[in-house]
Every structure is written in structure tokens, then in C-alpha cells.
């Protein structure tokens, strides 16, 4: 019998405690936590009150190292194919054409001053597949492939999620390929490769000629 009344008693007290907590939150609803980023000093300055951020209008900033949309700065890309090989899910497709000697100047240098030796007619990233693990950007020697902080880029069509970063049109690529063939014919001894040896399981890349 005593347990019966104790249960009723504790039931009432705990329910009232709980209601007190929710009521306190209800009255705290006039305060709002701001949109300070985690790296700002006032991040924890407001601990009570509403925490909702009205996203399209306000958002807390994404940290600098945030890994979201994958972006390739094709001007800096040397077509080394390391990212495609490192990607655990093969969401990067690269085709490269070796630059002929006379074109080296046209092809230009990376911002780091490295001579680019490959045209990259196809550099497709399927961001719909990408799992933002960051392995590709870690291996990139010129740091041209990186994840941006942009995360909101939904699309109506799946095809729009395949990003093309290639720096040549199809026609241009065709002509470059022809040019390379000609040069090869004229100079039979191939030069040593300017990049690390590809692993045997490297995919359909055409750079290992």
C-alpha cells in the first residue's frame, strides 16, 4: 500500500519537475542563439532559448576544411590521374592526352610553376556518387582538386550532377590526339614518364601509353 502512494507521489513530483523544465524552455523562447560559427568566440554565449536557424536566410558558416562539393581547378591540373586511382568508389573519370613538345607552352604551367604535360579533355566528377571522403584531394600533388564548403546543390536531373571539368572540347581533343600520333611516329623513343608509375589495376585511363 505504501508503494502505491509512493508511486503516486513520485509520479506527481516528477511530472511537475518535467513540466517545470518545459515551461522554462517555453519562456526562454524569447531568446535566440545566434548564427555564430563554431570557430567564433561567442559560439556558446547564449545557452538557453531557441536554437533554430532559418536556413535560407541564416546559416552558421561551414568550417574552412569542410568537405562538400568536389571542385577541380582544371588550370592547375596536371592530369596525373592519382585522384581517380585513389578514389575508393571511382567517381572521377579522367582521360588525358600527352602534350606534344610544341604545345608545351600553350598548355602552360600550374600556379605552382609546374609544367603541365597532359591535356585533360575529360575530367568528370560524379558528385552524385561522391562520398566526400577527401582521399582524392589528399593525394592531389598540385592541390587543384578540393572539396568546397558549398553543400546545397541539389538538382532536378541526375545528369546535371556529373560535373565536367575537362579543358578541351571534343574536337580539340581529337586534333591533339592526332598531333600526338604524328609526333610519336617521328620520334620513336618515348621519354620517361614524368609521373609515378600507375598501379596495375589503374582503370581505363589512356595516359599509360
Amino acid at each position, binding site marked *: 500500500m505504501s508503494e502505491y502512494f509512493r508511486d503516486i507521489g513520485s*509520479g506527481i513530483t516528477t*511530472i511537475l519537475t518535467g513540466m517545470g523544465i*518545459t515551461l522554462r524552455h517555453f519562456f526562454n523562447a524569447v531568446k535566440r542563439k545566434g548564427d555564430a560559427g*563554431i570557430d567564433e568566440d561567442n559560439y556558446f554565449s547564449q545557452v538557453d532559448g531557441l536554437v533554430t536557424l532559418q536556413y535560407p536566410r541564416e546559416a552558421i558558416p561551414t568550417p574552412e576544411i569542410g568537405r562538400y562539393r568536389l571542385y577541380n581547378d582544371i588550370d592547375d591540373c596536371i592530369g596525373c590521374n592519382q585522384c581517380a586511382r585513389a578514389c*575508393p568508389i571511382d567517381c572521377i573519370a579522367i582521360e588525358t592526352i600527352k602534350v606534344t613538345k610544341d604545345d608545351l607552352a600553350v598548355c602552360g604551367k600550374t600556379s605552382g610553376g609546374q609544367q603541365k604535360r597532359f591535356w585533360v579533355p575529360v575530367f568528370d566528377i560524379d558528385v552524385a556518387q561522391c562520398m566526400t571522403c577527401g582521399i582524392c584531394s589528399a593525394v592531389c600533388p598540385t592541390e587543384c582538386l578540393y572539396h568546397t564548403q558549398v553543400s546545397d546543390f541539389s538538382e532536378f536531373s541526375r545528369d546535371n550532377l556529373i560535373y565536367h571539368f575537362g579543358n578541351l572540347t571534343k574536337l580539340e581533343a581529337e586534333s591533339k590526339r592526332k598531333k600526338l600520333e604524328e609526333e610519336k611516329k617521328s620520334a620513336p623513343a618515348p621519354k620517361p614518364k614524368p609521373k609515378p608509375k600507375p598501379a596495375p589495376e589503374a582503370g581505363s585511363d589512356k595516359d599509360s601509353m
Partner: protein
Amino acid sequence: MQELEKAEYSSVRVTPKGEDRVIIEKDLSSEEMILNMGPQHPSTHGVLRLECKTDGEVVIEAEPYLGYLHRCFEKHAEMVDYPGVVPFVDRMDYLASMNNDFAFCIAVEKLLDIEIPRRVEFIRVIVSELNRIASHLVAIGTYAIDLGAFTPFLFCFRDREHILNLLEWTSGARMLYNYILIGGVAYDLPQGFKKRTLEFVKYFRPKALELQKLLTENEIFVKRTKGIGMMPAEVAINYGWSGPMLRGSGVDWDLRKEDAYSIYPELDFKVCVPDGKSSDIGDSLSRHLVRAMEMEQSLDIVEQCLEMMPEEEGFDPKAAIPKRIRPKAGEVYGRAENPRGELGFYIQSDGKSTKPLRCKARSSCFVNLSAMKELSLGQLIPDLVAIIGSIDIVLGEVDR
């Protein structure tokens, strides 16, 4: 050959408070009904499916069906090289990616036999303990939803958001971090991380207390969970339970103490075992209490680590990462304490390839869930929900 004595297991069905249980009256015979719970059901925490045979509200038998989220982790582990496995490991127990990575890296590092810089160990422990808190917050929050309380769930997620922000600041992703790499971590801690984390600890302690008052001490919550889903310690061990589930049954067993991996032996924390006063040892409430207590312990660990962590200027957390990860031939079973229990990786390497020959993940939820059939015998449907919630499954880890 002698068979296992069934009598040992009959204790599962007995609950100490007999009066609360529903006794099926035999003269009121009713038809059994097959009730299909899931895979899309609010309380199955994902895509678990339970086929329940019910008699009125009483579940006579509940058979779990898995595989609705079977994502072929083990196949992928055999197909991609060691660093590439880590993102897939992340996606196994998606609530505690850091801890998953930690367990996997421990296993591979055992095989590689490499020395980890001391600061890296500290960073790993800090992030995985933070993630443990986040994971337990989800567990507690969804448990509250299962029992019908919506507000604690949102409070849990609100506090979890701070942890996610901290971890995103550190690792660059919100949930699936790929941060703990084999032999190191991806980035050093950001500037001001220590200060912010200490602020978080200061912020979180009163919030945890509030959560306790709002949910854990609530009489209705206690009534719903106390004495439900009893699991005696012996049976729990035989089922292979681990983590908070096993500790809820009163077994003082924590891999952080037992295996003493990383820098845990240097830290001062206690293994949380229910005291048996507010709950019956082995019931759903005990498991919930263990989780709540572990959050406190994790806060302590984080504080200690931040104190003890060696500060190094220009520290390169990737320094110890081998250029090419190709372990020598051998087998290893490495494990770590996940928020849900023991997460072990059995890895076989042939010494030639950069890919594991075999990588089996011993997932804690998978093992914990296997007791579901026995736990659900003769329970009411609401209790069934309470039991599933207390097991705290993550289907990604169950099905892998």
C-alpha cells in the same frame, strides 16, 4: 554429446515484478495474429523487420529479419585498399564514425606494427569520446521517442549538434568523418579547439542534468522501462553482448579498461555499471542509465585529455602514416569499445596486396540484436518497442 541445458535460458523470461506481466488466460482463447513490424516502422530505428506473432497485445514470438540495409561492407573491404576502407567503415555505424575508424585503425596498425605519435592518440581519444556522447545522445533521444516523449529527443539532438559542429570543425564533415586514418589523423586540432570543447563540457553538464530530470527520473519513463527486457549477466555473456548492454546486466567489462588500448590506461574514468537501486540490474532502464552515466564519463575523459595533451608547434598528424600500406601476411583481430559495444575487425592480409584478403566486422549491434527473439517472449507490444530502443541498434552496423 550433451546438449546445452535449456533451463539456463529460461531465466530470460522471468521478470522480478510478476504482477506487471500479462498472463494469457487460457480459457479466453484468441487467435494468434502475425504482425509485421517494419521495415518501415517508426520504432525500428531504420529498416529492421520484426515478424511478431501476437495474441492481443502480447507478443508470443518476435523474429527479427535483417539485411534490409546490407551494404556489402565486407565485399568492399576486400575490393579497396586499406585507406579506402576507412570511409566504408565510417558508414557502418553511422552514429559513431570516429569510434568505428578508431577500431579499424587499431586493427590495421596492429598488423602494420607502427608507432603512433602521442598527440595523435590524444586527438583520437578526444574525438571518439565526443562522438560517443553524440551517439549516446541519439540513443537516448530515440529511446525517448519510442516511449512517446518527443521533447527529450529534440533536446538531445540540439546538444548533439554542438558536438557535430566541433567535429566538423576538426575533420571537415558532419557525420562520416574519415578523420582517423591508419597511422594518424587527417588534420591537427584547429586553433581554439581546446577552449571551445571545454566550453562545451561546461555547457553540456547542466543540459545532461536537465535531460535526466525530464526523462530518466520521470515516473512514467521508469514504469515503462523498469523490469522490462531482463537479461541476466550469464546469458548476456553467452549471447556475446558487450558495451552498455553488457554493463547494464551488471558485468563490469569495458574494453577501454580490459584491452587498455591507446592512452586509456593513463586516464581516470570508471566503468559504469548500474547500482541496482533505481533499476533492476539487467533491464532496459539499466541500459539507459549506463548510457547516461557514460556520457558523464566521456566528458571527464575529454577534459582530462585536453589537459594532458602535449602541445606541439607545427605538428604533422600524418607523419606516421606509411607511404604505402601493405601489411605483412598475417591475421589480426583488433577491437575497440564502440558506443554500442565491442566493435572488432578480423583482418587477414596475404602480405602482397594493398587490399585486405578478408575483413570481417564483428559488429556489436548485430550480436546484441540476436537476443531480441528471446527478450521479446511474452512482452506487450509497447514493451517490445521499449526493448528494441534499449538495445540501441544502428542498422548500418547490424547489416553492414
